[in-house]
């Protein structure tokens, strides 16, 4: 997603520009003002009560701009207050105004870190290089991956309507996506009747009709696809679609709360995601839920999840449930705070 898009800007706020490792630059030592708390406290842990805001001369510089405060960890109140105050004193010329020191420890740490990294990196790079070499071999020595895509794949891609004029009607893409799936495998193993039943009550509420839907043939056609195990996960489809859609800004940290929506979306959440992707507000006052979900796509973890992974996302999501539950209790102060 382009970084000039607001979503990209917010969601990618630390993920889009090239790294410039300035750890080699170590400025002169000076006291560093940070908040101090009790040892072991987390800087952003609300349970860690601030002890005091203090000047800590012993904070350890680890790079030109960074200070480690292990053992005198920041606490929400003290640290954030210190950071806020400090930031107000910075000027556009004061990049290093905090005066992180040039320390022997910092340099030693850097050297030690580099040595460790080098060993690990070498190992990993050899692994990666070997893998890529294998890839090159296995694609028959071709320089073009596409040469090795089967004719069937290419044919299907063309069927998918990528060429100009290939799709005349609004729903042909769906149909063609279905045709693709027919060749890919079964993307959705649902019983059309079950789907219809699920929505029957909803439809009744909308239309006031008491009729039972018995014929969903048109929809069912799209589902009657055969083949082997699914490659196309609906979650991935939604993910790509959402990435392609213009979305308002959101923060990754909050957005991860919606990972479950991607892993196994409920009917209502799935439709919210879809509505968001096509430029609607799912429901007035509920827009942010899906916007945050969209931003989550920027996160490598979520991308992994949308590609079919559950390993890391599952663990991640489990913590999210607790957080969301906690949110219920914090909503009131949030409102009162304003």
């Amino acid at each position: 997603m382009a970084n000039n898009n607001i979503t990209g800007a917010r969601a990618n706020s630390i993920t889009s520009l090239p790294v410039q490792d300035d750890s080699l630059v170590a400025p002169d030592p000076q006291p560093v003002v940070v908040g101090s708390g009790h040892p072991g406290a987390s800087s952003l842990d609300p349970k860690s009560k601030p002890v005091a805001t203090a000047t800590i001369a012993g904070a350890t510089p680890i790079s030109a701009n960074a200070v480690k405060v292990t053992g005198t960890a920041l606490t929400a109140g003290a640290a954030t207050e210190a950071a806020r105050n400090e930031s107000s004193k910075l000027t556009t010329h004061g990049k290093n105004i905090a005066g992180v020191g040039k320390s022997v420890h910092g340099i030693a740490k850097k050297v030690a870190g580099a040595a460790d990294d080098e060993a690990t990196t070498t190992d990993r790079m050899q692994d990666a290089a070997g893998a890529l070499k294998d890839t090159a071999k296995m694609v028959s020595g071709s320089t073009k991956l596409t040469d090795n895509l089967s004719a069937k794949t290419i044919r299907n891609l063309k069927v998918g309507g990528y060429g100009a004029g290939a799709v005349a009607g609004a729903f042909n893409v769906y149909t063609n996506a279905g045709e693709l799936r027919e060749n890919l495998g079964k993307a959705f193993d649902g019983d059309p009747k079950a789907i219809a039943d699920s929505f029957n009550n909803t439809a009744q509420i909308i239309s006031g009709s008491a009729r039972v839907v018995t014929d969903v043939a048109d929809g069912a056609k799209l589902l009657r696809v055969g083949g082997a195990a699914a490659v196309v996960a609906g979650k991935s489809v939604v993910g790509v679609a959402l990435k392609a859609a213009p979305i308002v800004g959101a923060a990754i940290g909050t957005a991860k709360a919606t990972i479950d929506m991607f892993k196994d979306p409920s009917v209502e959440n799935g439709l919210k995601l879809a509505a968001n992707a096509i430029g609607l507000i799912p429901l007035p006052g509920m827009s942010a839920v899906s916007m945050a979900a969209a931003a989550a796509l920027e996160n490598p973890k979520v991308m992994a999840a949308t590609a079919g992974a559950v390993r890391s996302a599952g663990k991640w999501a489990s913590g999210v449930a607790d957080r969301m539950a906690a949110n219920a209790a914090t909503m009131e102060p949030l409102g009162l705070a304003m």
Partner: protein
Amino acid sequence: MVNPLSLTPVPLPKVEAPSIDGLILKVPAAKVPTPDDVMARLEEHRRAHAVATQKKTGDAIGPFDEVCVDLIGYANGKLVPGSAQFGLWVRIDRPLSFPELAAALKLATVGDGLKVNLTLPESFFIPALRNTPAVYLMDVKEAQHLKLPKLDDPGFLAKIGGAKTLPEALNKIAEELGAQFAVAATFRALHVAIESVAARAEVQLSPKLLQQELWNVWREVEGKALSEHGLLGQEQVDSFENWKDDPKAVADVERRLRNTIVMMAVAKAHEAELTHERLVETAVRWVSVLGISEEKLAEFKHQDDATKSQTGALLMEIAAAELVLERSTLSWVTA
């Protein structure tokens, strides 16, 4: 500052449904998966199926680790919009927008609390804060070392659509991407259709309504997390004020409100065409496209009436958007 939540919800304006006939839409065609796309997705699969080793407190961060951090930043004595990130996972081997944070992370250990001074980049999304010095606080919460599977590992390949060889896996991935891009193109078409018909309508959005919706967005995206981490009062005031000053955020909220209100009006005006059968047909189609599982479908049956009703209203809007698209003359534009 007025808390929009303390007010009675602002009613939506009444809008006359515009004509949905005669629209001529040009929509970017679906992207054809490139070798780079395929290789990138292959890498995602590898990471997804990697063996992860959880690092312990005090362990150094490695060059290929994934690291979970809490983050918050201040500039000019105020919270930097979007800077409050909690439980944010980053890949050390990927570039970061803020090189100072990347440099600090590379030298950190699990459990560290860091204070990082940096300058917000020239590309920062709030123009007023570009090239502004800032102070960021960062906690390194956890880290994982990933051992990626070999590309010729049969167990790994089997997880990519049951592939037996790498070329076969690459084909599967290309197919997967092709289907996704096709659906994405359809989403774009619907989006263009909605925007086009909304442009035909007269919609007056009051400042109160806009602020209320902006508040809703901010609350979900940033406000809740701030509250959760004990950042109340002035922190939140600053945060929301920054959102209000962000023209892109305001414009997006306005656009979505307009689109939604118009599509609600279109749905109402075309109620006779949006029959029970058609809505179910739409639902079936989208359930398939969205990959909603049978278990979730079963759960939906037991949802309360309010949820069903809200979902139904949403379905109605989507069905109305499809109706607009059906009536339009659509051409796919290739780059």
